[in-house]
């Protein structure tokens, strides 16, 4: 049961342009969302998060938008840099837990110099 979905397995963007990575979820109990970035041969590293009480959170070049009615969130990276090339995972946590993270399948971002 895929409760967190990333429908685009890959994305290519020119350096300097905006990268938009999308994530959809089905469980209305999710109330905290995170994005992780993963380089080959490394574990996922935390990038940015958002609580369900917000619709936007910004950290430098990274902004996460949450649309609760659509059960959709997105990660915007602007401007994109070649070092941003990695696999990006969306993750969600159900209300009342805090232990079990549900991950999407990931989107591989390639930023072309």
């Amino acid at each position, binding site marked *: 049961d*895929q409760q967190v979905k990333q429908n685009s397995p890959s994305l290519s963007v020119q350096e300097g342009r905006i990268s938009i990575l999308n994530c959809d979820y089905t469980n209305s109990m999710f109330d*905290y969302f*995170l994005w*992780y970035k993963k380089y080959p*041969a*490394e*574990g*996922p*590293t*935390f990038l940015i*998060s958002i609580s369900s009480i917000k619709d936007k959170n910004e950290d430098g070049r990274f902004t996460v938008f949450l649309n609760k009615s659509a059960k959709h969130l997105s990660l915007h990276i602007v401007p994109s840099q070649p070092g941003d090339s990695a696999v990006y*995972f969306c993750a969600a*946590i159900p209300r009342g*837990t*805090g*232990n*079990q*993270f*549900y*991950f*999407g*399948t*990931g989107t591989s971002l390639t930023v072309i110099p």
Partner: protein
Amino acid sequence: EPEVTQTPSHQVTQMGQEVILRCVPISNHLYFYWYRQILGQKVEFLVSFYNNEISEKSEIFDDQFSVERPDGSNFTLKIRSTKLEDSAMYFCASSGDSSGANVLTFGAGSRLTVL
């Protein structure tokens, strides 16, 4: 910067053999996790551990799996009798320092290959 360390980085084993994957979580973290990623698939939750006991486990975490925190620093995942389908990347993670419990810090992973 504090990190989660995992050993071994890669283990090859025969089907039916026991495997122990080791992790050293970040020292002031309180929650410990194992996740796995089968090649080309999503990262899947296996188990979480808090206060010296399992707090949650998934359907994947059946009787052939066990976790232990044998001392104050190590957190291990044991697979009692490995199957071919256990071949995956196993990630240890920890969370729960004073800044909050929701951000997982992952290790680099242990690749398990079952032949």
